[in-house]
Each structure stands twice: as C-alpha cells, then as structure tokens.
C-alpha cells in the first residue's frame, strides 16, 4: 500500500548540499510491520519525515515513486497532503515528553485531529478519544481528557500519542523510535500494545528503531539502513538467521547476548567512521569500515542482489554467486 522508489532527501546548506537519505526504495503492505533499523544519523528519521511531508524547510525530497494506496504523494498540493496526515497516515514520535503541547488538555489535543479530518462534532470526537484511550490501556479515560500532558508519565503520554495517531483510523502508522525514551518495562508494554492494535485495526506500520532487540519483537520485515541507504532488506527471521551484508552482521555482533561474550571482554564495535551525509559516496558507503572490502566497492555502487526470497542486499559480495562469507569477528 505504500510504495517508495528512489526516495532522496537533500538539504541545501552553505557548505554544499547534505544528502541524509539516498535513493531509498521499499514498500509496505497492508497489515505489515516494516522496520527500518540503523545507527543514529543514518537517515531513518529523515525518511519518516520525508514520507509525512514534514521535512524542515531547507530540505527537499525527490522520488521516482511515492504512493500511498495509489495516491501519488509527490505532486500533492500542501493542503491535500495535510488532509492525508493524521488521517490516512499518522505518526508517533520518539519524545513523548515534549511531543504533546503542554498548554492544551489531552482531550483537546485528541479531538483536534477529529475536528480536522472528520468535522467539528464534539460528541463524536470525544467518543472516539474515549474509546481509544481505553483501548491503549489508560485507566479512567474520561478524567484523562481533562488532564494536561505534564500530569502524565512518559509511558502514558506515549499511549496518548498512539491514541492520537489512531483517531482517524489511518491506514499507515509511522512510529519513529517510539520506545527509545521509555524505560525497559514500559517499552515492552508499548510494543505489545502497538502489536495488538495493529492486528486489531489492520494497520500498516513503519517502525523506525536502532534497537535490533525491538526489531525482533515487532517486525515482519526489516530494512537495514546505513549512511542514507538501505543496504539490506529481509523478513525478520531471515535477517537474524542469515544476515547478508557485512554491516548487518556487524550490527548483530554488537548485541550483547548473555553467555555469548565472555565477561570482561569488550563489546565488539565496528571500527571506523560513518561517512558524513555531506560526502559524495561513489561506491559502497560501508567500504571504509568493511573487513571484506574489495576494489570494486570504492568505485561503483553495489548492485542489489537477492540472496533468498524477499531478502535483498546491496553488496558486491553477492554480485558473483557462491562467495562464502563469515562473521567479521
């Protein structure tokens, strides 16, 4: 239902253009949870803002295809795009503490979405808000409506954010690191809440995270992003079982698993530096950190290769068949 091809984001700046997102292509199907995973700064958040049309003023978006349920979002007038936001496509953010307006009540912020997209009917808006608050697991929802954000804990605020995103039954929910700012137990609750809501409402969800642990719990499919590009896309199980790209493997190595790494041994880390988004990258962006780098990596962008059904990887190693790979460490 969401179809993206060659999505790029360019930010014009004094010292030349910055390209935080480069030629992204992916699609998300109805009811599916699509995870985008990568380090901070790799362009995940920029991608989500680009999809929502909420890029900062200096940033420009380009794509050969960007369609939601067949509506081409690329050429949509500002007003029509706003009609879609919060309606067919909603988003929740990383910082529940600051993402709600401190001077308005929860109820007013929830109803506002309804008024915007469904017309000014207080009773209907309130009913929907109450139902959703209850649905996201908040006790005594009626009182909540009159409360202000500062009276709620972070976890509760994130539930409010989720309810707010769902006010108009969107087809697509973009969740940008929704659990990062929360502590672990709350994180788990929110994840399972999202999971169950998705099942119930048949949502498509783009879930952005840097945490592979979270990915394993929620994703149907995963895209691994590095320096503005997707380097590997696969079903969740696939990626954990058979990571193809050296970077993905590096990431997986870095997850501390009890027992797997001996005590006192330092956590493995990928050596080297991420290329700056201002840099032009001729070949593979990971080339300078990759322990299996080839000459070809530096010159041309690696072709996309399928290593299994639905498992795509951008790496020269897969250009020629039969290369054997091993874990970097």
């Amino acid at each position: 239902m969401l179809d993206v091809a060659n999505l790029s984001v360019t930010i014009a700046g004094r010292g030349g253009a910055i390209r935080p997102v480069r030629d992204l292509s992916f699609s998300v199907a109805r009811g599916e949870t699509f995870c985008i995973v990568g380090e901070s700064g790799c362009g995940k958040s920029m991608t989500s803002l680009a999809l929502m049309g909420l890029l900062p003023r200096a940033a420009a978006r380009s794509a050969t295809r960007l369609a939601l349920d067949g509506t081409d979002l690329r050429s949509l007038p500002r007003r029509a795009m706003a009609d879609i936001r919060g309606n067919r496509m909603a988003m929740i953010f990383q910082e529940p503490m600051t993402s709600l307006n401190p001077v308005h009540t929860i109820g007013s912020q929830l109803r506002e979405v309804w008024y915007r997209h469904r017309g000014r009917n207080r009773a209907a808006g309130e009913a929907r808000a109450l139902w959703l608050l209850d649905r996201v697991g908040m006790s005594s929802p009626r009182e909540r409506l009159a409360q202000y954000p500062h009276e709620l804990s972070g976890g509760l605020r994130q539930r409010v954010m989720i309810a707010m995103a769902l006010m108009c039954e969107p087809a697509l929910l973009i969740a940008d690191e929704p659990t990062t700012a929360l502590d672990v137990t709350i994180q788990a609750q929110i994840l399972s809440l999202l999971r169950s809501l998705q099942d119930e409402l048949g949502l498509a969800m783009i879930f952005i995270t840097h945490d592979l642990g979270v990915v394993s719990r929620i994703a149907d499919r995963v895209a691994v992003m590095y320096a503005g590009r997707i380097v590997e896309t696969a079903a969740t199980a696939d990626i954990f079982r058979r990571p193809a790209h050296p970077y993905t493997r590096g990431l997986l190595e870095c997850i501390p698993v009890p027992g797997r790494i001996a005590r006192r041994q330092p956590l493995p880390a990928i050596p080297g530096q991420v290329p700056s988004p201002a840099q032009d990258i001729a070949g593979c962006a990971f080339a300078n950190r990759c322990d299996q780098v080839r000459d070809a990596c530096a010159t041309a962008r690696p072709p996309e290769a399928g290593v299994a059904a639905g498992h795509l990887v951008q790496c020269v190693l897969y250009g020629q068949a039969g290369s054997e790979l091993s874990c970097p460490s």
Partner: protein
Amino acid sequence: MARYLVQRLLLALGVIVFVSALTFALTEATVDPALAVAGEGATEEAIQQIRRQYGFDRPLVERYLGWLGGIASGDLGESYRMRRPVADIIGEHLPVTLKLGFLSLAFAILVAIPLGVLAAVRQNTWIDRFALSVSVIGQALPNFLFALLLIIVFGVNLRWLPISGSGTWQHFVMPTIALGYYAMPALMRLTRSGMIEALEADYVRTALAKGLSPGTVVFRHALQNAILPVVSLGAVQFGFMLGGSVIIEVVFGLNGLGYLARESIRRADLPVVQSIVLLISFFYVVLILLADVLNGLLDPRIRSTGA
C-alpha cells in the same frame, strides 16, 4: 494555589512597604518639609510653628508609620502646595496616564506580536530583517527624541495632529506611538525568539503530523506557548510606561501622573511625590502578580505547581 497566592501577596506587601519606606526616608531626609509648607518669605518663627503643627519635629520612623497608617485607612495626606487631599489630586491626574499607558501597551502589543510571529515564521527573510531593524531602531531611539521628531513632522509641518493636551483621541496618537514604540522591541524580540523556539518544538511537529493547517499550528500551538513570557514582559512594560511617561507627558503637555510627579518634584511637594512613587510601585506589584496569575491561567504547568 491559595497558599501560593497568599505567599505572593504577603511578599508583594512587604515589597511595597520596603519601597515606600525607602522613598519616604530619601525624600524626607533631603528636603525640609517645613520650608516647603511655609511658602515664600516665611519667617523663622512661622517655620518653627509649622514644624510643630505638622509634626515635622517627630522622628522619621514615627512620621513614616503615621503616613503608612494614613494610607492604610485611605488617606494619602495633603499636598503642601495645593492644600488638597493627595488622593483627589492623584485621582484627577491618573486617568490620563492610565489611558496613555493602556494605549501605548496596546500599540506595542499590536505591533510586536504580529511582527514577532511573522519574523519567526519567515525567519531569515526580509520580513525578519525588517522586524529586527524596527526593533533595533526602537531600542536605540530615545523616546523623547522620537517624540520631538513626531511633533516636528506631524504637528508643526503637516499639522495633522494636535501637539499637546488630552482633549480628543487625536491628542493621544503621537504620545501613544512615542511611548509604545519604545516598549515594542523587547516584546517583539521575545515573541520572535519564543516563536522560533516553539516552532521547532516537538509538539509543533506533532501538530503538523496531525494534518492541522499552518494557521492552527502557528497560532493555537506555537503562539500559545511563546506568548507566556511575553505576557509577563508586557505587564512589566506597562508598569514601566506608567512610571516612565514623565518625559512623554512633558513633551506632549499631557497633564497626567508623570507631569504631576515632575511638578511636585520641582516644588518639593513630598506627600504627592511619595504617593505617586508608592502608587506606581503598587501598580508594578499588582501587574507582576497579575502576570503570574495570567501565566498560570495560560500555562497549566505553573498552575499545578502552585497548587
């Protein structure tokens, strides 16, 4: 909330008593009120007699307490020069100054907030630079200088507006602009910086993600947050305008509190001077309290911490 308010009120009261004591001591220590009362050509005996009659020979503290006691019962004393109750005299002069203050504040706000919002929304465009220039000029142009320019252009050369007096609304146009323009830059800058901050805030992004129109986002979400400090500053500015309208009143011949103050200072009419200073301090205190309350109404976070 109640306890918080009571605390604030007590503090305000303390501040007023302190300020009034300072003013009283300062003025009474520098001027011999008996001389002022006695008038021209009074003999030494007459002065001595006045000293006894008015109780100027009592210690300062005693006189201060007496004065304070009078105020508590609504008696501001009697003017040395006009031989009339100070309260009446102030009552005659206050309306002009209040009117000027309100108009100037309204002018300042009506220019500052739209300009500040516009400058923030269109940051780094010509509008922003224009707004900044207007504010920089306003800060650097002393209001009496500006007032003189207005008089030369609109009063004398164009004859569009009356130069002095307070008879009609036209009389208030130039004074309002001269006084208001001086207060405007600070309000404008605060609005602008507050708006810039608010527009970059996460909740504004949330609001946009909800599909709200830019107008709703700017005014309902950003401005309502950015306006909070502006309200406090506005209150302070209003107090400042009441106290600082002296020059404008003198230049435009407006017979308000400022003019009365200057005239009473010239004539060492201490009861009037003391009462005016006290009154304006009182206004300040009330305004600051009011700003707090208003902030509380606008900002639920303050409201509940006060509870």
